[in-house]
């Protein structure tokens, strides 16, 4: 008798929870009820790890639940992306990746997901692309460089082939009518120290701190970069500019909109409250704190995809 009653209660419980699950998506009001899983395409100590840690404590405090870092490094983000795509869209799993890496993983690597598999949540930081030459170099401005490049084949250091930096230089050189040769150096610091040592003419990479020893000719971002406000943007100079790179949060397709908005609002609030401290710490990892909402991030990610696809096919690169 007793066991039977117990079983009935369990069955009723299961049915009830199933019904509830169907009738109402997890309500944003009770969100989050447990820890949130942040999936990172790099290991501990990598770029995305330090980016999340800029806000982690404060967001946890505000939302009342811990953020758990899950490291899925490898294959240029494909492993992490696939993991998130296959996760339950219940608002407890997020992918932390830059818009440019996400697009690259789809176009250059054999990713089995598309942009439609993810919902943009918000950006966390801006990582500008900078154009830097040696302080002893005769080029004082981008214009000097572009003019000189018409007669001399310039070599510029980048991190990896077909990265956004190469595509941006390619767009500029097509407009201005010069040819420049990319030298993949395998890392931003390596590319910049090659400029410092005079082994290449310019480096086009994300900041690493070494740029303070170099002359920065231009920066690829919408607005001027606060670490070096004297440096003009590509747009101001009249050059074609590519998409900005933002480290961002994405959620699997089907994640309720209320939850996405709640997470975005939480980040926005945290940055407003502690802007000074977060800005300082972001500078320490060569990034700039920026919280842009789902709509802006979605637009940016789409724009990145279009720009990459167009440039890659113009250059005759193999596109997935």
């Amino acid at each position, binding site marked *: 008798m007793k066991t039977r009653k117990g079983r009935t209660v369990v069955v009723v419980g299961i049915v009830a929870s199933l019904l509830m699950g169907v009738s109402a998506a997890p309500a944003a009001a009770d969100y989050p009820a447990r820890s949130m899983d942040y999936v990172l395409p790099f290991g501990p100590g990598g770029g995305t790890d330090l980016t999340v840690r800029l806000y982690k404590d404060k967001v946890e405090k505000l939302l009342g639940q811990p953020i758990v870092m899950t490291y899925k490094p490898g*294959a240029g983000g494909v492993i992490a992306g696939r993991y998130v795509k296959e996760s339950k869209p219940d608002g407890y799993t997020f992918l932390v990746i830059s818009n440019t890496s996400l697009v690259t993983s789809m176009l250059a690597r054999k990713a089995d997901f598309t942009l439609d598999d993810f919902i943009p949540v918000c950006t966390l930081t801006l990582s500008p692309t900078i154009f830097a030459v040696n302080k002893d170099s005769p080029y004082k401005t981008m214009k000097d460089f572009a003019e000189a490049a018409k007669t001399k084949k310039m070599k510029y250091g980048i991190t990896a082939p077909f990265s956004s930096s190469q595509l941006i230089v390619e767009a500029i050189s097509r407009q201005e009518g010069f040819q420049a040769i990319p030298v993949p150096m395998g890392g931003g610091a390596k590319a910049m120290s090659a400029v410092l040592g005079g082994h290449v003419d310019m480096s086009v990479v994300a900041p690493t701190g070494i740029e*303070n020893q170099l002359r920065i000719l231009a920066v690829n971002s919408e607005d001027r970069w606060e670490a070096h406000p004297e440096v003009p943007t590509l747009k101001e100079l009249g050059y074609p500019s590519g998409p900005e790179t933002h480290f961002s949060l994405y959620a699997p397709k089907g994640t309720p909109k209320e939850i996405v908005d709640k997470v975005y609002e939480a980040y926005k609030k945290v940055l407003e409250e502690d802007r000074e401290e977060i800005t300082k710490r972001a500078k320490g990892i060569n990034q700039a704190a920026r919280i842009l909402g789902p709509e802006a991030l979605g637009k940016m990610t789409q724009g990145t995809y279009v720009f990459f696809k167009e440039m890659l096919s113009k250059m005759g690169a193999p596109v997935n």
Partner: protein
Amino acid sequence: METITNVGMGFATALTWANITYCFIGVLVGTLIGVLPGLGPTATISLLLPVTYYLNPISAIIMLSGVYYGAMYGGSTTAILVNIPGETASIVTCLDGYQMARQGRAGAALGIAAFGSFIAGTLSVVGLMLVAPPLAEFGLRFGPPEFFALIFMAFSLLICLASGDMLKAVMITVVGVWVGTIGVDFISGDTRFSYGSLTLSDGVGIVPVAMGLFGVAEVLENIDKQEQQAKILKTRLKGLLPNRQDWKESWLPILRGSAIGFFMGTIPGGGGVMTTFTSYALEKKISKHPERFGKGAIEGVAGPESANNASVAAHYVPLLTFGIPTTVVMAIILGGLMIHGISPSPTFIKENPQLFWGLIASMYMGNVMLLVLNLPLIGLWVRVLAIPYRILFPLILLFCIIGVYCLNYNIWEVVIMVIFGFVGYLMRRFEYEPAPFVFALLLGPMIENALRQSLIISEGSFGIFFTRPISGVLMIVGIMFFIIPALPGFKRKKFDVAD
């Protein structure tokens, strides 16, 4: 004179109670994570980074650096005792350190590693006092052509590295270079030999291969050799510290290792395993008894361990003067400094003598702590070898699996390790040396990338390797390593060795 005043100020900074405590915490945590597989210094330092927001910058960098060189030392301990290279820099230590342990001389190996590191640390402090600023400029002059020439020279040393059959060594080297090409080629962006596997598209990692070839293969080979352990236990009592003969054999390798580590540590991308490997290859090349290497030659532990420690101190020169991190750990430490508003500059050492010399003094202090911490522990560590093999071997396998899995949280890397465990077992059975394979796997991609980067810069001309002074000299030295053994005068010496 000014330098001496600065060094004095450095010690005054480092020897405050607070900084001694932070240094001790760093060294202790570092040693622990170095000994335990899984957590490496990169992960630990990034986890500790938030703690340092609340410290003053000097204490912060002292603690983080302590973790770094503590972990280096801890990594050597497992390499010597159980043939597990916890991180790449200690792969070389496995070669002779573990063989020494097998012969009951684990204490001597651990001791010479500790003393060698300490002496190298001391020498690099003196070196930094004398030549820090010009040294930074020297490192910057290493572009892709110089890097190519440096590795070319290392490869020419490698040819004579194998102690057995030359033909077998060359074959193994070629296979190692081929395995090194697996994955995404970062010059063209193409994927090579991955056959659609995501794991292979990232390349075959050096740590899973080394753990397989050394750790796992060792266990497999010993399964049918149970009688050996009794011998180790009997000879174990031969002494826990290096004896006079050991010192006689080690002091020159320690000095040479310190010099190599110190100079190569300042080259962007030249630290870590490049220095330990070069030191090992050099010791073997100039040794009167190169056949002892790989069979427990104490020089093969003393040189590379000293080189590694000297390079850690030297890494701070390009880091603080130009902001160039030579390793991933250095990049995180740089981030920690920048959070405190400290920005590297060529005049950094002049403008921040307290921070720079305080850090250098703390590293010296940290080396003393490592010595004090580890010498009494040697007796305890050596007892690890007394654990019966039926218990020790499963533990070694477990540690290898955890260690490799924690690299990238990828189970397929564990599979790669197991495969190379069997490969290593077969190689031992048929008397192929594993060392040339590991070095070829490591240096192959480096030399390929440097070659292609150089040729992109020179627009296809090979002249770039000879017209630039540093690379020209290195290329000529490398070519001489090939030619000299072929000269008549050299042959005689080889016969002596054979006798």
